[in-house]
């Protein structure tokens, strides 16, 4: 046993390729047999991945899902931001820049609206739950943007660690639900063309959520959604602790 575990741990990335390959094969099989291809294999694989991450997290008490189990540590490298972003960039190959230029206004508006709408919604719900000071409202509003904007805002404004943890949890909920739910809401919001994909990426903003959600919906939409989503967190980190916070201070008369 120790010998096997040793080989798998020592060759973590290669083992991750095997694990993911098997997972996708099985998911494609179920996609064909159980859903007759209606639910894409990639959507099933992503969902199974999240479920595995849940049990991995329960088992180890860590924050990196399955990757906290020593033999699956290679998944952390394979699914980490370096290779993920590298692969996202590669999907842009063959994209027509004229198309993106034509949808540029949509993209820019989507990012700005996305940041403010999420922050407003998050802050309003925070207030409804009794967090009525501008610092907590801005932090939880930041969490509604992404799980990075929340803690950055909270740290900058000096929010309590409880509120920061809540903002991270809210951002994670958003990211996970976008990953799993995008194929289901896609028909409702006409997410079937490059322009709506750019709007979607900018409005949702969570890069991991959008990357997973669009992969599960239609891989051809990925470059367009990813392109706008990648500006979101930067904008959120810029706007939420400043403009949005000051607006809250003004509104609450503090």
């Amino acid at each position, binding site marked *: 046993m120790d010998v096997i575990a040793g080989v798998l741990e020592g060759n973590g990335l290669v083992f991750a390729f095997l694990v*993911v*390959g098997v997972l996708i094969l099985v998911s494609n099989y179920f996609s064909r047999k159980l859903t007759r291809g209606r639910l894409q294999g990639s959507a099933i694989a992503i969902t199974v991945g*999240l479920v595995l991450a849940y049990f991995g997290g329960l088992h180890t008490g860590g924050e990196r899902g399955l*990757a906290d189990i020593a033999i699956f540590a290679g998944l952390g490298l394979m699914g980490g931001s370096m290779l993920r972003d590298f692969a996202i960039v590669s999907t842009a190959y063959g994209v027509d820049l004229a198309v993106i230029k034509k949808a540029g206004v949509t993209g820019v508006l989507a990012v700005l609206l996305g940041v403010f*709408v999420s922050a407003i919604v998050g802050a309003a719900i925070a207030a409804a739950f009794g967090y009525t000071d501008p610092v907590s409202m801005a932090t939880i509003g930041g969490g509604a943007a992404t799980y990075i904007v929340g803690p950055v805002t909270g740290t900058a404004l000096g929010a309590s660690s409880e509120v920061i943890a809540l903002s991270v*949890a809210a951002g994670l*909920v958003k990211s996970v639900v*976008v990953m799993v739910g995008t194929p289901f809401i896609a028909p409702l919001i006409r997410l*079937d063309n490059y322009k709506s994909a750019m709007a979607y990426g900018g409005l949702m903003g969570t890069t991991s959520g959008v990357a997973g959600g669009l992969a599960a919906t239609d891989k051809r939409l990925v470059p367009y959604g990813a392109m706008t989503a990648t500006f979101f967190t930067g904008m959120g980190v810029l706007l939420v602790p400043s403009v949005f916070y000051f607006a809250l201070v003004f509104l609450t008369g503090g």
Partner: protein
Amino acid sequence: MIITGVAVLAGCFLTGMLIGEFLGLLMGVDANVGGVGFAMVLLVLVTHRMRRAGMLPSATEHGVFFWSAMYIPIVVAMAATQNVVSAVTGGPMALLVGLAAIVAGAALVPVLARIGGQAEPLPPLEQDKTMAEVS
């Protein structure tokens, strides 16, 4: 050569990341602002130039295609390493905030997509082709 394609991709990726990092510094925020987006635009521009100059034989292209085909497997690995426990145990408020942000954002997609005219839906996917590509 395949490595040429991978190297071009890597060069565009790193340049884009640097631009994103500098933009963050310029704006005074501790975040990479659009690095991936800039890298994508660079990749499109650079490969377009290379193709016109006849410097993009199909072996070189395959260096890029490989990573593009690895995209979904990488995303599956990413899903398996998310902090799902924190998302699930975050309590009712975290759940509500996350969901409400999605609903509000999704509701605006059709509105924003209408700016400058509705775009044509993509042609339907050939299921078998995607399967082959993914598996």
